[in-house]
């Protein structure tokens, strides 16, 4: 029996910033459920609030009002340390700029989240190598990020996000810094590993060509949810 709890539940979420004395509304009253095990895309033009929404879903920011619930956990109830521990267990991130640690090898970058979970060296090694193998970089394990191409870096980032088996993976414009071929390959890879791991994937993009890959698409404009589309195949 499948768990009916959505991967993410947003209830009247608002986020405002004060900039130079002005109140800027980044998100205004977003209410949505993102089901588990889906490949979800958040689309919208620049400044529409995609990154802000991903930050809230990823538990690295808190809403000004409203409620954010991730994997059944209300993030408002958690202290900073508890929220950090929750991210360590349940949320994986793939960044637009890859954000790999430049002083660590590909292997060590992927291993890093497992260290935070306190796993043994043997388990860490097995999982890390399996993940690198899955993204096709087992033979590049010892390379530092500056020795890898953009596509390879993003593969390492994907491996790092998935290695701990999170219930949710967030990717903020993961293909923005890649050429179209590499971008398509990365989307294919993300789609593939999402299916294998049955993980909920939420990523933002303003590239309409990628929308065909999504199970569900949420459209944002000026901080408001203006559309929700579910693919016919789902």
């Amino acid at each position, binding site marked *: 029996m499948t768990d009916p709890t959505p991967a993410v539940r947003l209830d009247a979420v608002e986020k405002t910033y004060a900039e130079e004395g002005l109140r800027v509304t980044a998100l205004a009253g977003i209410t949505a459920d993102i089901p588990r095990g889906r490949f979800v895309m958040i689309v919208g033009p620049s400044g529409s609030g995609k990154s802000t929404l991903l*930050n809230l879903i*990823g538990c*690295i*920011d808190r809403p000004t009002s409203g409620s954010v619930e991730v994997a059944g956990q209300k993030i408002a109830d958690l202290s*900073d*340390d508890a929220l*950090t*521990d929750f*991210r*360590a*267990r349940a949320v994986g*991130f793939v*960044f637009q*700029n890859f*954000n790999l*640690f*430049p*002083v*660590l090898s590909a292997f*060590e970058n992927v*291993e*890093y*989240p497992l*260290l*935070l*979970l306190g796993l043994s060296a043997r388990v860490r090694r097995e999982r890390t190598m399996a993940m690198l193998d899955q993204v096709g970089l087992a033979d590049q394990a010892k390379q530092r990020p500056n020795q890898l191409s953009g596509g390879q870096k993003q593969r390492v980032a994907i491996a*790092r996000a998935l290695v701990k088996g999170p219930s949710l993976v967030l990717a903020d414009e993961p293909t923005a810094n890649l050429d179209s071929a590499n971008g398509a390959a990365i989307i294919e890879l993300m789609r593939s590993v999402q299916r294998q791991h049955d993980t909920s994937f939420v990523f933002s993009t303003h590239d309409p060509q990628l929308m065909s890959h999504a199970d569900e698409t949420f459209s944002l404009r000026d901080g408001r949810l203006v559309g929700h589309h579910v693919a016919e195949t789902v």
Partner: protein
Amino acid sequence: MLFKLAFRNILRNRRRSVMSIGAIAVGAIAMVLFGGFVAIIILGVQTDTVRRTGHLAIYRDGYFTFGSGNPAAWGMPGYRDILDMVKQDPVLAPMIEVVTPTVSLFGIAGNFAVEASRTFMGAGVVPGDRDTMRRWNPYHLTYNNAADSGLDGADPTKGVVGTGLARILGLCEALKLGECPPPQAKEKPDSPLATDIADLADSEKAANAEPADTRPHIDLLAATAGGAPNVISMVVTRADRQGVKELDDAMVLMHFDLAQQLLYGRGEKRAIAIVLQLHSTSDMPVAKARIAEVIRAKKLPLEVRDFIEISPFYGQVTGMFGAIFTFIASIMGVIVLFTVVNTMGMSVMERTAEIGTARAIGLRRGGIRRQFLLEGMILGAIGATAGILLGIGIAIIVNRSGLTWLPPGQSAPSPLAVMVDGMWKLHGGIWIGLMLMTTLAALLPANRAARLPVVDALRHV
């Protein structure tokens, strides 16, 4: 992983890390060299003081505060019993190098053959004991002091004077001192005092009816315990330069028996002090406490003083050099502090996005703080270790260079030396101090890094 990450981050900007490590190392080198130099000076002054005064002295109660102006009145009757008591005490005996009686006295020294006189400060000592005391050298320091006191245990009439006094009393040529004054025309004495002293000396010689002695000698006049003037003649075997001019112009070191004879005449012979020299200065507090305990238990009218009280110069030297060392260490500490704050601050700024990434992935604020603190500590550990090792290397080179200098209170140049052996406490202290300083310096940037909002940190370019 934390250590690996910290170490690799230090190597990331090598030039900046090398500059920071260099600043820490220079601080450590300065402290090792100056600390070792100060240690040599302090131990040198201690050695010199303990050779002269011993570690402890037992006086009649009140002598130290009131009696030095009239030592004869503060003599200890039955001092041999006190000597025996100290020597046989089961607690004190194993600690003692020398225990010996001494006499301190003042008076007028005259060489009436050349009609010269001068007030003197005298000390009467047991020659053998004094020679043993002068050989005390537990720190293995190189000194140019004469190995013996210049006194003769078998001949109580022999004594030693300061070079200044020898010159004043016209013994310069007789003792082959050099820098002798030109000969002056002889004038008839017009001072009644000098005439009186000369008469006294002549009457003493006549009474003793000794054959003519060609050895250089002086006559010493002092008031006895009973208040009567007394004169004795002393053969001057040598003149020793004293580190302080006032002492050099007045010092007379004589045989204990001769000093007693001058101070007590035909009366009961007493000692002014029982001096104890210990094998080790570290035993001094225990020995002092034991003597005080015995004095209290036996209700003896005595007091015990240590060399730090007897010779305030020692305390002044240690205090002054301690203050200079603290000042230098503080300056070095501040330089290290600012260097590391700058290095770590730059590092935090450059790695802001990485801090955001680590926090997003699940590293707590405390983990970020630990990371930067560890980097500061590694910088400190490398810099302090390298600096201490380099400092020791430089110290060894200095010690072998053959350079000399004149330490405070010394009369002859000593080798310029930096203490290295047995300085593990100083070196350990420097290492720990620099580590604490670098950790403290890293704390501010580390806290700043830990407090960064994750979203803002990730947005940082």
